[in-house]
């Protein structure tokens, strides 16, 4: 299967090329500090993109994840500020905040999923709608400004982003766990298998006793939970949420999924490819900041060119045939 192996190595090759380019452009690129930075920052989009892989694989789409992250962050911060007098600063407060984030994420995902599977509306429309709704709500709750976590609480919570064990930051560890769990779920569990089957041909899946709607619902719920998890790691970083939190994360997450080799039409998902896609996107930003370009106005153009090139590299000639 030479075809498979080309598309398998494709995104990896693009990643390696970027790393070589980065190392060539700047000596600090491969420093532990920079690597930690890049990986830790990738973690939010990364976890979301892993969830998005399942949604897309089963033939869905979710445009609301960025706004959902902002909304969850807002709710989490409000909840923690509200519980502070009762719980005091400490692990219970942080755990309570985390529980709120996961709960809100679950409910948001459930909302999307129910509208899509029960009411039978196109995922694009449902999540375009909820995207506007979540973002508006955050802006409204924050009164147009920023919701900030209480300073002391934040100091306590901060290590969840900045700390770690064995010198590895928490976001990186959590991201790695999510990625591995996602890969296993996709390859080695019924859930992943059913997602692929549904995306490939939902009628066949239904004929084969797969509970199509329930599985699709689960993909949105899982994605909501992962957005919640990402938010748990995001909030301690800056301790705030506003209407501009998570802006365009949806586009980045979807792009990562597709760069990674998952088909937008569904039927074929590759979680590790998504991880590579996320890293490619993060590295592009990092390299643009580290290198001295003609003009920062052109960042977007260079980003665009690299994204397309990364995928050209991956698809190679094979796709002339078309799927």
């Amino acid at each position, binding site marked *: 299967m030479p075809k498979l192996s080309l598309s398998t190595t494709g995104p990896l090759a693009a990643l390696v090329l970027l790393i070589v380019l980065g190392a060539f452009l700047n000596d600090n690129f491969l420093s532990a500090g920079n690597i930690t930075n890049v990986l830790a920052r990738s973690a939010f989009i990364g976890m979301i993109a892993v969830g998005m892989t399942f949604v897309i694989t089963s033939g869905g789409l979710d445009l609301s994840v960025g706004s959902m992250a902002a909304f969850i962050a807002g709710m989490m911060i409000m909840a923690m500020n509200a519980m502070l007098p009762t719980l005091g600063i400490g692990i219970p407060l942080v755990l309570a905040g985390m529980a709120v984030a996961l709960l809100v994420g679950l409910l948001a995902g459930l909302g999307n999923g129910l509208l899509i599977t029960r009411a039978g509306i196109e995922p694009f429309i449902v999540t375009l709608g909820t995207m506007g709704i979540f973002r508006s709500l955050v802006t409204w709750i924050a009164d*147009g*400004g920023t919701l900030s976590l209480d300073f002391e609480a934040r100091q306590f919570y901060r290590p969840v982003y900045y700390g770690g064990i064995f010198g590895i930051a928490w976001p990186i560890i959590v991201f790695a766990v999510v990625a591995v769990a996602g890969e296993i779920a996709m390859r080695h569990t019924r859930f992943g298998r059913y997602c692929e089957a549904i995306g490939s041909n939902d009628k066949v899946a239904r004929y084969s006793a797969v509970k199509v709607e329930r599985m699709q619902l689960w993909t949105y719920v899982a994605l909501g939970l992962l957005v919640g998890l990402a938010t748990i790691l995001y909030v301690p970083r*800056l301790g*705030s949420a506003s209407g501009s939190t998570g802006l365009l994360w949806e586009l980045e997450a979807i792009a990562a999924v597709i760069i990674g080799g998952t088909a937008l039409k569904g039927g074929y998902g590759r979680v590790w490819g998504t991880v590579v896609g996320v890293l490619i996107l993060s590295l592009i930003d990092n390299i643009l900041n580290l290198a001295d370009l003609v003009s*920062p106005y052109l960042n977007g153009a260079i980003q665009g060119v690299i994204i397309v090139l990364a995928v050209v590299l991956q698809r190679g000639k094979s796709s002339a045939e078309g799927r």
Partner: protein
Amino acid sequence: AQDKTFVIGVSIPSATHGFMGGLNWHAQQTIERLEATYPQLDFVLATVGEPGKQVDDLEDMLATRNIDGLVVLPFESEPLTGPVKAVKDAGKWVTVVDRGLSQPGIEDLYVAGDNTAFGQVAGEYFKANLQSGAKIVVLRGIPTTLDNERVDAFQKAIDGSGIEIVDMQHGNWNRDDAFTVMQDFLSKHPKIDAVWAADDDMALGVMEAIAQAGREDEMWIVGGAGMKEIIKRIMDGDKQIPVNVTYPPAQISAAIEMTALRFVSDTPVYGRFIIGSTLVTQENAERFYFPDSPF
């Protein structure tokens, strides 16, 4: 003069970053207050995310809301000049806020911050407090004309001081973006003496990145626009963030109030009001501290 009600349209960009958030808040507060005080005044508030849509809003205010006066903060100067002129030509009162139109003489009243001064005041502080050969980095806002004005003025102000801007990137007036950019600046430059973050949201992101790298003692930061958290720190004498430059979001309140006065009284309010950018230091910080504002 209770027999006629006046409708005043207020069109501003939506709350996409800290400063605009503050401005939105002040606008709504002022409108609420004025509507309570003057029952004969009616306000129409519209917020937008794109210049084309702002034109739509102005058209709607003219066509369906029968406004008598307009307070507008143009999303961008050039594209809004024509449409605002159309409002003026329809015989309405026009107040322009913050960003001037590209053609002089359209508006009745102009209330604005001073972007050139904003960059210049910051630049002068850098010049006065850094040695020749000092290295600084700059975080810019969203690419716009006003960002250009600020940065140009800043560069002009430090001209000839021997201060070197070793890097400049867009942080888009956004905490997360500023955090990321600053992380990378810190990886890239072993020595940075100071940061001009040009906006308090960005300053907060920058501070986190510096804290993470443990280089708090190496450099200080100047933000801008007078966010309450930052002013508080200056009051407390935080060495890392010694000063701030004002660019008050409350200018919208001044503009709305003056426009309202035009309709409820005979106060002559024509003219140009430029709210200068001043340097906030530990000494005068208290005057700029509004703990209730969301910004």
